[in-house]
């Protein structure tokens, strides 16, 4: 009779193996791309920036829900992805202008809201909220899945002194599980499962051939 602990470890191993295989299977489910593309073509004035409303209405993204951003431009631009809601970002901008230029009235503050210099100052002040910071020229495309559930606001900034023609296309991306998080646990589970299940399987095989 086989020792009971071999049976116990074998069953634990087979369960770990099955969980690992299920994880591997789930991680192989391909990305699905949203059918809705949010497109916006505009001229961005010199030393100005523009906030871009995300296509999923709420502006909230997660490790399961990401973005594909495609930008086409005739000049150099700075593309940011910020982990803040557009309203929150505008609040930061208003506060920053009011603090640094205390003599400005409401109307003047509103006029200065879209200045690229304000954006630069805010990006430096809230560097932890910058998810993506890329210099873009010509055609540019990137895929982004945040590491945690977060707001995401796309910002394009024109630091140059000439107006720039910009076309921004954003698509939502969906995945069942974030692949990079699942691969290591799946491999660990499969390997440890195989190690534990082997003595049990060998024993079962021997019993079968003996009978």
């Amino acid at each position, binding site marked *: 009779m086989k020792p009971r602990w071999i049976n116990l470890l074998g*069953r634990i191993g087979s369960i770990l193996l099955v*969980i690992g295989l*299920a994880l591997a299977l789930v991680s192989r489910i391909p990305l699905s791309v949203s059918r809705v593309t949010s497109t916006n073509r505009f001229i961005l004035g010199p030393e100005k920036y523009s906030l871009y409303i995300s296509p999923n209405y709420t502006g909230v993204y*997660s490790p*399961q829900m990401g973005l594909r951003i495609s930008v086409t431009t005739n000049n150099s631009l700075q593309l940011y992805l910020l982990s803040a809601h557009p309203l929150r970002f505008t609040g930061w901008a208003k506060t920053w202008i009011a603090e640094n230029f205390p003599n400005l009235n409401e109307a003047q503050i509103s006029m200065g809201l879209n200045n690229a210099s304000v954006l630069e100052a805010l990006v430096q002040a809230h560097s932890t909220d910058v998810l993506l910071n890329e210099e873009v020229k010509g055609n540019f495309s990137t895929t982004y899945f945040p*590491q*945690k*559930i977060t707001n995401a606001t796309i910002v394009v900034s024109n630091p140059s002194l000439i107006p720039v023609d910009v076309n921004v296309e954003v698509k939502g991306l*969906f995945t069942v599980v974030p692949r990079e998080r699942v691969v290591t646990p799946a491999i660990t589970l499969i390997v440890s499962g195989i190690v534990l299940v082997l003595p049990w399987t060998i024993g079962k095989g021997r019993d079968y051939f003996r009978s």
Partner: protein
Amino acid sequence: MGKAEPFLEVLISSLNEDYRFPIFEIFAFLYTVGTFVLANLASIIGQFIKSEEAVAFTLAYSLAGLPAFIFVILILKNIAYGLGNDLEKGIMQTLLSYPLKRRSVLTAKLLSSLGVALLLFLGIQVFALFLLAPDIVFPYMGTVLLTYLALLSYPLLTAGLVLALTSFLKRGSIALIAGIVLYFASNILSSLSQFIARAIDSNLPLKASAIIDPTLSLQLHYGANIQLAELWTPSFTETLSYIGASYVLVIFVFMLGYLYFERKMEI
């Protein structure tokens, strides 16, 4: 020979019976696939603005949907079919010949049929939560635990009722069907209570329903059910008391099952 050894013998025999290869593996696979495929973080986006606690609740709640149903099927199979089979085929007589009290034999059976299934369910759920959203789970562990406590209350109540019914009828098939009907009845009861509550403009039906299935009070506390928010928004303490009350009911039903098994049942 101490009491631990015969207890372990009964437990091992029950484990062998309840989880024959590859039943446990199939359920583990279903739990895992069900958990990840239904883990829709997008569904919690509406909650994001309210509070992060509400996000933790909604995440755990959405993750447990299908696996909770699979868990119920597994425990009902184990209790009704397993225990019922033991009673019908006279295996229980052999188990009762061990130098153990009847309640210890039943505890060993329940540890196998309920405890191991619960361990697998919670293990995979917690693993999935940590894998998908550690930033939510770590700071709000209390909320996640509370959500699972509330979620498991009704399945455990169903399990207790099925245990009592199986012991009483000494047959598993009827108890199994009754258990499945009871599980689905909770949804009907919940919908009915919500309908009546709106019709009579009173939160009493909701409170009565929350004693049986306290997830409703948690949903309303975290604002996950906007339609009923006007009728009832329980405080945290109130929500805790409803979860407590539901577990008092669960313990009472299990005690009835134990008492019948120990004192009244003729084998």
